[in-house]
């Protein structure tokens, strides 16, 4: 039974109950629907906070082992509760607002940056029929919502009234809008073949054969992973927050809870990029060749993708700004166009 059928049944049942008790069935159904929405929203928020904490621990552990260290190991078994300790520390920390910041803009930026990250999670495909918000235009929705975070980064960079923040913010925005283009174009062949923008249908189209198992699929996947890494400012592309030149980029002036919000948004975006890559290229909750389907595979794939992104961090040196721009516009963009043309010709010949 899928999520939608379940909620429909529940609403019907509550309406019937209300009718027998003499209340308005319409209003009862309405409040049930609102309650279900709140429950789903609460579940998604809980999922995000657990995953973000797990990821921060995982990042430190993976980094540690890649540098022949142990990583966090004091709080709890294997240091698992380290993130909780960190969160408590950040919550208790004094929240300092520098004197010259542009107050409203500076205050709103960390809130606005979390909203698109949380909203994108509503499209997380756990299992067949178990997508909290399976829109017909799901992929377009995620791309559109993701572009709102650009404004938040601009607000943080400008509102801090600090030249490092401003330069960091402008670099981030330039990088995000440049790499958004190849990221979208890498997904276009998948959409052409599946004939749909909804996550559910794109995954169903891969129930036997993943999109990765073809030449165009490999090319698209590589382009998507590279531009996804750039969009979330992870290490080979972490120019916006390059410690050695810009202190911390756009979030230099933030401390305490506001800094924590930027941190959560960063890790959430990492999960979203991994989620899109696994749903669009790695068959979502399906094993290849009809070997089975389960939410476990989806989560495993997402974590494998995140591990790949962490591996990148300790493997590649940081690029220079001009190298990065040239790579995005002169290498990735033509390849993705050629890929789309090739898939289009192939589809036309096949039909």
């Amino acid at each position, binding site marked *: 039974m899928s999520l939608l059928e379940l909620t429909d049944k529940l609403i019907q049942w509550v309406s019937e109950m209300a009718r027998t008790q003499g209340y308005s069935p319409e209003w009862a159904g309405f409040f049930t629907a609102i309650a279900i929405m709140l429950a789903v929203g609460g579940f998604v928020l809980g999922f995000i906070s657990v995953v973000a904490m797990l990821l921060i621990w995982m990042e430190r552990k993976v980094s540690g082992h890649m540098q022949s260290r142990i990583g966090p190991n004091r709080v709890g078994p294997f240091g698992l509760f380290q993130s909780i300790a960190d969160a408590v520390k950040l919550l208790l920390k004094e929240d300092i607002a520098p004197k010259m910041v542009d107050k409203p803009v500076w205050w709103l930026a960390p809130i606005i940056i979390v909203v698109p990250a949380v909203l994108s999670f509503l499209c997380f495909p756990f299992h067949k029929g178990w997508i909290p918000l399976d829109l017909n235009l799901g992929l377009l929705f995620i791309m559109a919502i993701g572009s709102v975070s*650009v404004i938040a980064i601009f607000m943080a960079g400008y509102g801090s009234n600090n030249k490092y923040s401003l330069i960091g913010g402008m670099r981030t925005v330039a990088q995000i809008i440049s790499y958004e283009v190849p990221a979208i174009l890498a997904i276009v062949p998948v959409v052409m073949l599946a004939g749909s923008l909804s996550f559910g249908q794109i995954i169903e189209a891969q129930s036997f054969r993943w999109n990765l198992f073809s030449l165009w699929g490999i090319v698209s996947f590589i382009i998507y992973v590279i531009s996804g890494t750039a969009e979330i400012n992870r290490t080979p592309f972490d120019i916006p927050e390059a410690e050695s030149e810009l202190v911390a980029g756009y979030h230099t002036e933030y401390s305490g809870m506001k800094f924590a919000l930027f941190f959560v948004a960063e890790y959430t975006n990492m999960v979203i990029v991994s989620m899109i890559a696994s749903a669009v290229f790695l068959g979502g909750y399906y094993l290849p060749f009809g070997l089975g389907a389960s939410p476990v595979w989806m989560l495993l794939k997402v974590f494998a993708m995140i591990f790949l992104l962490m591996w990148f961090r300790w493997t590649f040196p940081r690029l220079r700004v001009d190298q990065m721009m040239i790579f995005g516009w002169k290498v990735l963009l033509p390849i993705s166009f050629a890929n789309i043309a090739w898939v289009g010709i192939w589809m036309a010949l096949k039909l």
Partner: protein
Amino acid sequence: MTELFNTALTPWEWTQLISFYGIAALMIVAALMVVTLRNIFHSALGLAAVALGAAAIYLMLDAEFLAFVQILVYVGAVVTLIAFMVMLTQRASHGKLVRQSNDQKTISFIVVLSLFALLIWKIPTTVWNTTVSTGNLADAKTLGTAFLKEYIMPFEVISIVLLVALIGAIVLARREPK
């Protein structure tokens, strides 16, 4: 308007009404921010708010595709470009003492007010040729088919316009190589 409140409304209709007027009020406040604030960066944020509000209105009008494209184009591209403009011309637009409006304030206000009065008088009295929707509403598929069938010529023209704008912008903005 009065007959609206005489009939009993379902909860979803209440939600629709409240969200429409709420979003409309927010959009008007944001639009006023765009034209009145001294700090031009705050104005750009107001424009972003108006664009998001318009996207919500499109969602209400069952135009999901347009709503998402609106967010992608306006918030992701237009407001971002404008914010870039503000940053690059920071010195010219900075400072609270710089006068932000010109000498045409009064006359513009009269012109705008007369246009507003004329239309606010005509809009409620005109009888619009509305139809009650039956069957399928236009979705992304309808739009895509229409773009490649009836509207193929305007579609191609708009592509050329975008290409020309792109090349023109690059030519204008780049520095002459010495």
